[in-house]
Every structure is written in C-alpha cells, then in structure tokens.
C-alpha cells in the first residue's frame, strides 16, 4: 500500500509539530505542495484547495463548508480521552451515564470558539447518545453547559480562561453503569520547588493527540469516509455552543 501523501498548509499553527507527528506514521508521506498531495491539513482559506482532495480542517468550519472538508476534533485524540474511549468500547465501564469536563486555560485565544466546540464534541462522542436537553449559564469568568441525553445520560462542561500565564487544566470524568474513569490534570501534576511559589505541572502532552488524529484522518480517507457525517458531528456541538454561549 502506498503511503497517503499529505500536504500541511503553511499557515497551520504548530505546523512543525504536525509534520513531526506525520513523519512517525508509516502510512503517511508529507509533501510540500498540494499538487502532489492526496490530502490536505488546513487551517483557513478552504476555497483554495482542490475540491477533490480531502481536507482536515483545524480552524473554524465555515457555514457553507465544501463537502470535501473534515473538521478536526482533536480532543477525541487526547491520550486521556483515547484511554477512556477504549475502556468504554471494551465495555469495562458499562453504559455511560455522566460526563464531567473542566476546560481551563490561561487565555481566551487558547480557549476560543473552535476549542469549545471541540470540547463539547468530546462529551457528545463519549456519551454517544442524541441530545435531549441543553442549558447554559455563566458567572463572571466561567461558562457552563449542561446537557441531557435521550437515554438518560447527562453532562456538565465548564470553560475558564484566566489561569496564570501558559498554564492549562483539564479534568474529564466519565461515570458508567459498571465503572468510572477519571482523567484529571490534578492527579497528573508533579511538584517543583524552586524560588517563589511551589509549582505543580503536568508532563507535557500538548502534541500527543496529533499522531492519532492524523492516523484517523488517513484511515477515514482509505475507507471512503464521509465528510458530511464529520461536519454534522461538528455542527451538533456548534449548535449547543451558539445557543447558550453565543
């Protein structure tokens, strides 16, 4: 099987990390020009790519997105989320009943509209049921989304963007009928004692999602994946966000 030739657009943020991740995947070959490519990783300007090439879109999905565009949903490929998903798929946790997600960052850029859609999608993906009810509210610095699902599951998500500079915190809990999974930066942090305050920092995993995300994209293309389905998934999360936290 020939490797899938992947072009990563030059305007993609953290392009080097994506190229590094792609270079580790035997089924991918990075190419410098879209004319040589079988697929594109893009951030914006979707109109400039050939209509017959699948595009993994890291930026916002425009209202009228071309049908060849797959919106990236990077939170699904976070190693913590992947571990929980494997346990759910194995049936270890039973039927998911509750998902709780805290997404905290240090800037509003790091927790932008796109990233909130991605976070909501993560919860929808893990619960795997249709939405029955939704609600949102906020305090001065904190936004809350509260979801109910058709077979009784429920979820709470909150966003906060005023952590100290360069810090981030995520906590994901999934409670199933037979067990629970706790992926919490609280328990992942190590302590550093130096001048000034004690510092609690997680080991860096910032780019760990990139490889699995690219592999999934490649696999999707090879299996004649459905970009329309991927767009509907994205829109479901976007609709919730627009309704409650416009």
């Amino acid at each position, binding site marked *: 099987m020939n490797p899938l030739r992947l072009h990563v657009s030059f305007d993609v943020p953290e392009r080097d990390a994506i190229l590094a991740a792609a270079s580790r995947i035997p089924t991918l070959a990075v190419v410098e020009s879209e004319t040589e490519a079988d697929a594109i990783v893009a951030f914006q300007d979707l109109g400039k790519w050939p209509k017959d090439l699948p595009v993994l879109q890291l930026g916002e999905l425009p209202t009228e997105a071309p049908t060849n565009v797959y919106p990236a949903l990077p939170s699904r490929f976070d190693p913590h989320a992947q571990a929980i998903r494997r346990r759910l798929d194995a049936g270890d946790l039973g039927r998911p009943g509750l998902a709780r997600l805290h997404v905290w960052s240090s800037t509003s850029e790091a927790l932008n509209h796109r990233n909130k859609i991605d976070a909501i999608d993560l919860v929808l993906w893990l619960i795997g049921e249709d939405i029955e009810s939704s609600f949102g509210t906020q305090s001065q610095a904190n936004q809350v989304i509260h979801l109910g699902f058709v077979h009784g599951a429920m979820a709470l998500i909150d966003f906060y963007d005023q952590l100290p500079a360069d810090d981030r915190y995520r906590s994901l809990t999934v409670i199933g009928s*037979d067990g629970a999974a*706790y992926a919490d930066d609280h328990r992942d942090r190590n302590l550093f004692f130096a001048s000034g305050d004690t510092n609690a920092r997680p080991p860096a995993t910032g780019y760990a999602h990139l490889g699995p995300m690219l592999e999934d994209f490649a696999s999707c293309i090879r299996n004649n994946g459905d970009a329309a389905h991927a767009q509907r998934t994205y829109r479901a999360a976007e609709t919730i966000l627009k309704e409650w936290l416009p």
Partner: protein
Amino acid sequence: MNPTDRKKPPIRAGVLSVVKHDYLPRALAAHPRFELVCVTDDADRPQWTDDRNEVFAKEFGIPYLTNPEQAFAEFELDAVIVSPEAERHCALAVRAAEAGLHVVVDKPLSTRLDECDRLINALGKNGVHCLVWNRNFLPAIVQAKEAIDSGQVGTLSSIHCDFYFAKDAGPPLGSLPEGSPPIDWLERQLEAHADGSDGGVGTEPMGELQVEGIYPLAYIHLLTGGAKVRRVVARTASHFHQAHADNDVDDLATVTLEMENGMVATLCLGRIGAAAHPDIGEIKLHLIGDRGAAVISEARPEVACYHRNQPALQFKHERVADENNYLLSENFARVIDGTESPMLSARDARDICATVLAALASARTGEPTEVDHL
C-alpha cells in the same frame, strides 16, 4: 482554635433514636463537654429499631426508654442527638425543640419544606439551637475555606462540586430475572446497614440528591458565604441500582445552580457503585474567583496502603487527620454556650432542602426551577 471551657458542667445529651448512623452519638460521647445519659425512641417503632437502640444503650451503659417526652423530663437533658430513620429526622427534632432542648440532627434534615419550617419555628420559639450534621470540617474543606477567606482566589464566582459515593445498593440495574418483584426500600436499607451505606434507611424511598445532596450543597453554602440559590437546572437518573429504579428515585444527578451575586455552581452526584473507585469515591471541588482558581480533593490528606490479602472493600487510600466529628461536636458545644453559630443550621438545611426540591422538580419538567426560600 481554643477549646471550650472544659470545667463547665457536662452537657447532658439524650440519644433520640440511633437506628441510622451511630457516629453522631459516638462523636458527641467522645467529646469532653458531652455526656450521653439515655437513649429514647417512640414505643410504636418496629422491632429492628428497638434492637438498634437497645444495643447502643447497652454498649454505653445508659437506659433505653420508649417514651421520648418522659426521657426529656426525667433526665434533665440539655440536648438531643437525633438519628432515626431518614424520614423521621425533622419530626423528632421538632419534638425535642418544643421540649426546650438543643438539637444535633443527622442529615438530611427533611425532604419537606413545611417540616423544616416547623423546626425553625420551634427552635426560635423555645430559644434553642440546631446543628445539622455535615462534612464541612474535613481538612480539605477547611483548606478551601481558608483559600477563599485569605483572598487567595479573590471573590468567588463559580464553584463546581463532584460528590460520588462509590457504594453499591443491592443488585445492579437490570441484573434481576425478568418478573422479579420490586425491591422493598426498607429491606434493602436494612441489608446495607452492615457496611454503613444505609443513609436512606426508612420506609420512604429517597434518592441520592435527597440523602447525600446536603453534603456538597453544604460545601457550596459554606464556601459562598451562604449565598442563596436562585434557580436550578437538573438531570437525574436511576442509572446503577435496581432498588433506586424500582422505587423511582435517583442514583445519579447533575445540577446547575444560579446563585445570588452572579455566582454559578454545579454539582455532579451519584451512588456510582463500589467498583467505580478504590476508596469512598471521587469528591472534588473546583473554585474560581476573580484572582485565581483552586482544585481541591476532599479526600486529602490520605495515606496509600496496598497489601497482600487486602479485603476487596477496604479503601486503598486511608484518610488521615480527619477531625470532622470532633470539630462538629466542639461547634455544637459553642452553639449551646452561645459563642458560635452552627456550622450548618436548620435554616441553612432548609435552604438546601429547597434547592434539592427545585432540582428534582427541574429534573421532572426539564425546565429551570426557582428555589423556594423563606
């Protein structure tokens, strides 16, 4: 904290039913200011309650009377410790207050606002006080309060609480053969007494929000300085246990609270099964203020212990330095001395009851629900 005056005459406390959690009377018995002098309960109670009262009275070498009013009069009581079936907490507390006795009462105070109001009226009319049992003196909660009081997180704007008890409650949902009769709530609770997971013991089925919701809501009450909850949105489910499904009560819930001063709180709560956590359960607080944020594990400090032949249900992480029982007893002594307010008063617990009722109403209707405050 300086201790109260140990030279004062002991506070004579009667145990007004001890059929649920005996850790209340044990906590006060272990405190130097209190003296347990009798156990009492009504004469018309079922045999199992009589048995439990009798066993406790024998252990402490104190008499057991099946006439509370007689016990109030004969033993010159100052206070009572109320821990009967969950649905009798408030009614017995009212009788003690009407007799002019201070009250420490097990949680939940009640599932009915009119009962709470009767107690508040009786306390006021008779000039006595009430402490509702809670976990607000656990070391991590004290630390959270200090972080707020010291200004470390600034003015609090949000608080998120997870309160999962990793306890079983009989057969898992859907595990019984088809056509099995519904599980009797009281029988199930009596079975649970052996491992202490019978917080809802009684004939009235109560869900986790009603039985345990008071703990995290008391954290929120404490840490927000008693801010009132204005509006509630909630989802509930019977997700784990056949007993809860058969009795139409929740074992899993999510609640969003809109509070005064623009504060927002959320709560995730459930009786999620013993397999779902190595210890009592994941209990956490996330605080957000205008100067910072904090993530607090209620379990800390703790010691991790793993060993051969470890019993399956023994917690792998043992909580240490837990002085909650002592500090609540000390607080109650101070309340009786008139030098301190209860850590959780009847009025506070009434607000929490109103919040729980609003949450249950919201879960039924799917709509945001206003909270009925006094």
